[in-house]
């Protein structure tokens, strides 16, 4: 039987139009495959089989997606990967889910994630344990590891994740799929459980750029329920992959060693630069200013905002409550027992950097650094159309290899946090394989609202190198 599970949605649609199996039947097979394979993969924590709205209307026409556990769906277990919310059922749909419903999408299941989005390897999980479909001893990346694994393993057509400092792009990179972080405010955050509000975005994972664009077109646009959603109108026209990249100026970091890349990542990146030139782009090295020093301000800011956003979890109205004599004791016990160690570490750090006497030294300085970074990007994009750099300094690492070393763990974020801090759109897409046969990816960062440009350019690259045909890929090794 020919498997279609490696196909993109647009290819499957074409196949159906050509007399192939119906999308509904493809969904059925995908759903049963998901149930069979999930125990050894851990991509899903729950299967929800939500048929969305009746019928299979365009544009998503009955395709089923996987939704990260921090994106609210009515009646779904929006547990955020936390014991605290293990039994919480969301009474409302996030805007993202309601737009997907209106676009005909079905929903297969809720995916595994690092608790409240805090993690880069999906090892800070208490509900579920996900592994990389390419090699099950490796991390799937975090915090949207489950979503990326589901798409890579052919268990869902697309997935939603959240990207606060790289949590969609990094797992996309580790799992060899396409991952988009949109411009902050482009996709409504209503219903996305807040981690670091000024950094959080809902991101999209898909098998190729065209699929990601389709889901993006459904999700993006102003929302009355999110006061920070951008009012800019959306260009709804189909994505056109150009014949070449002529007329485009693409920049890359002038000082390659400032990125502290692993050797083979460095080599792959140089190949990518050449490939972009071959495709006709004007490729030039650029000064990055403070862009690659975004790690420290990112860490201060994400902890500060997380500390405040997670204040609401006290067990009084919802969530796991450990009842004691007094309100204060109940509060302490519920939070101490309900949150995992990584979350607690960040909450304490966050409270510290916002506290009187330290706010100036940490929080305000981080804010100033952020403003400076925004200016650096602004200057760059006056000269170039896109910035190209690797998604991470390394490819997928082994589970457990960085758990004891938070700094080593955070170093994997250095190339994803800059776009997060600046609120800019960024796309990660696979370009080749490393020595171990694991995916390499390239990252494009563009000015605000340039998602179309990122996806078009990546689409051409993707078409050119044919990464989907790579035989080592898990979608070609389906059981």
């Amino acid at each position, binding site marked *: 039987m020919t498997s279609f599970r490696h196909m993109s949605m647009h290819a499957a649609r074409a196949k159906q139009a050509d007399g192939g199996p119906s999308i509904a039947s493809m969904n059925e097979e995908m759903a049963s495959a998901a149930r069979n394979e999930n125990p050894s993969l851990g991509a899903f924590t729950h299967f929800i089989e939500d048929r969305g709205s009746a019928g299979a209307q365009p544009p998503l026409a009955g395709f089923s997606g996987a939704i990260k556990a921090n994106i609210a769906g009515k009646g779904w277990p929006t547990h955020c990967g936390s014991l605290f919310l293990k039994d919480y059922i*969301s009474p409302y749909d996030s805007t993202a889910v309601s737009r997907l419903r209106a676009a005909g999408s079905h929903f297969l299941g809720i995916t595994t994630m690092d608790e409240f989005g805090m993690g880069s390897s999906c090892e800070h999980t208490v509900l579920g344990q996900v592994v990389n479909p390419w090699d099950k001893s490796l991390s799937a990346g975090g915090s949207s590891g489950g979503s990326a694994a589901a798409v890579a393993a052919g268990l869902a057509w697309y997935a939603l994740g959240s990207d606060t400092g790289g949590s969609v792009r990094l797992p996309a990179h580790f799992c060899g799929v396409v991952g988009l972080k949109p411009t902050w405010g482009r996709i409504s955050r209503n*219903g996305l459980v807040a981690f670091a*509000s*000024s950094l959080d975005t809902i991101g999209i994972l898909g098998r190729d750029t065209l699929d990601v664009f389709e889901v993006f077109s459904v999700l993006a646009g102003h929302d009355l329920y999110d*006061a*920070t959603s951008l009012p800019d109108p959306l260009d709804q026209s189909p994505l056109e992959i150009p014949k070449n990249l002529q007329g485009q100026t693409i920049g890359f970091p002038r000082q390659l060693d400032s990125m502290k890349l692993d050797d083979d990542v460095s080599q792959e990146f140089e190949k990518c630069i050449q490939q972009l030139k071959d495709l006709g782009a004007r490729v030039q090295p650029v000064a990055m200013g403070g862009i690659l020093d975004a790690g420290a301000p990112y860490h201060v800011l994400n902890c500060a905002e997380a500390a405040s956003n997670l*204040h609401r979890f006290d067990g009084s109205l919802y969530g796991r409550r450990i009842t004691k004599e007094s309100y204060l004791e109940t509060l302490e016990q519920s939070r101490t027992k309900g949150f995992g160690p990584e979350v607690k570490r960040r909450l304490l750090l966050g409270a510290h950097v916002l506290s009187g006497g330290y706010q100036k030294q940490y929080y305000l300085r981080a804010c100033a650094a952020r403003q400076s970074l925004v200016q650096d990007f602004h200057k760059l994009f006056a000269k170039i159309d896109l910035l190209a750099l690797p998604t991470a300094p390394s490819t997928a690492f082994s589970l457990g290899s960085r758990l004891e070393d938070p700094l080593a763990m955070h170093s994997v974020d250095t190339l994803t946090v800059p776009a997060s801090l600046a609120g800019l759109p960024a796309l990660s897409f696979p370009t080749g394989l490393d020595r171990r046969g694991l995916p390499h990816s390239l990252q494009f960062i563009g000015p605000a609202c340039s998602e179309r440009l990122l996806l078009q350019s990546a689409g051409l690259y993707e078409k050119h190198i044919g990464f989907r045909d790579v035989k080592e890929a898990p979608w070609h090794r389906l059981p």
Partner: protein
Amino acid sequence: MAPSSLIFSVGLEIHARLKTTQKIFCSCANHYGDAPNTNTCPVCLGLPGSLPVLNSEIILPALRTAVALNCEIPRLSEFSRKNYFYPDLPRNYQITQYQRPLALGGHLDLGDLRVRLQRIHLEEDAGRSLRGSDKMTHVDLNRAGTPLMEIVTEPDLQDGQQARGWLTRLRQLLRYLDVCDGNMETGSLRCDANVGLSGPHKLAGPWIELKNLNSFKAVAVAVDFEIKRLDEMLANGVTLRRETRAWDPRKKETTLLRVKEEASDYRYYPEPDLPLLITEPEDIQAVISAMPELPHDREKRFSRSYGINPAEAVTFCRSLALGSYFESCVQSLAHQSGNDPTDCGPLVAKWVLGQVLEAVGGKDDLLPTLNLQPKKLAEILKLLVSGKIHRTRGRLLIQQVLNANEDVCIADLCLSSKSNDDEDERLLEELCLRVLVGESTKVEAYKNGKVGLLNYFVGQVMMLSKGLLEAEKVRSALLKKLN
């Protein structure tokens, strides 16, 4: 106790609930008195993933207040998070305005005393915690997310009476502006007081914050109590410290709630979910153009146009309802009688302050639904002015209108009371004879020159008539009989 040479200063912190239909960050009803937890939604409950969105309904009332209070309104203001844990605070942070409030400075005068304002800002209210009979804390989140304006004064007041007087003035203004109904009973207006030292003996800092002031009277009594308590402590050489104290209305004393040194660190920072609030000059101009008449101006106008003295003007302007009633009646009487409003004013004033206010038990808000409306009262007063009826008849007519279940025609009432005139004549005859016959000794004395006794006889008849007879008529009837 020797009088203190210390000068105490009092500042107030007022929370006024804006009269909007919806809460500040969601579309739940802003309504008092509904069954607990029925006006809630994911936003005001702080459910995971929910986001606040500013309800534009709050902007005009807030700006109107800031303009009326002479504040400076910066172009940009910002919302902030105030982080702390409490059962009635769903997100365990309150969305308020910290560093960049809606308005700065401003003032509201109390007579000659200028009371300056520090700031006015917008924030959401928390829910209510109630101690149940089961010893558990019950939380009602209907109030969580309702819109508040926090108004903070400088410590320009000096004692409890002034504080009370100023609060009354503020509440009056808020009601005139139609931004807040100002009812402490339903929690639309809350007030904390800060008592400290100022003047040449100012000691660096310690302030006492007074809470649980549930009425304007409580504010006055608690502030005065605290001033006296502090004065005595200082006289005894006790060092003060910053404290938060609660007023106990039963024991009539303040008790320590917490020492300020242990105050929480709220870790304020700008609210990332809400954009900056922008107030353009055009917005302020629009508010100025549409500003209703303010109490001070209305008082001056009443005094000038309706011939009443400033004190009476202040009384009539104490509420919109009373002022409107008075004004409608004066204008109607002027129209009906052809007299000048400045001549009609004093007469109307007397009657409104008398029988009309009596009829509503002093509750101004009952005036609009009173049986006796201004135009009708004016009809009665017109008869008085034209001499067609006397004062006592006027009182009777008013009572009849008040007692009637439906609209009555004054002319009809007068006709039907024509027979009353004859009865009055008979009553007059009867009572005069009764008094003169019963006081034969005094009558003799009168006839012998003690003419002052006439007043006595008049008084006796008036007393017996229980106010139904006109004094002048009694006097002339008695004179006729005596001579």
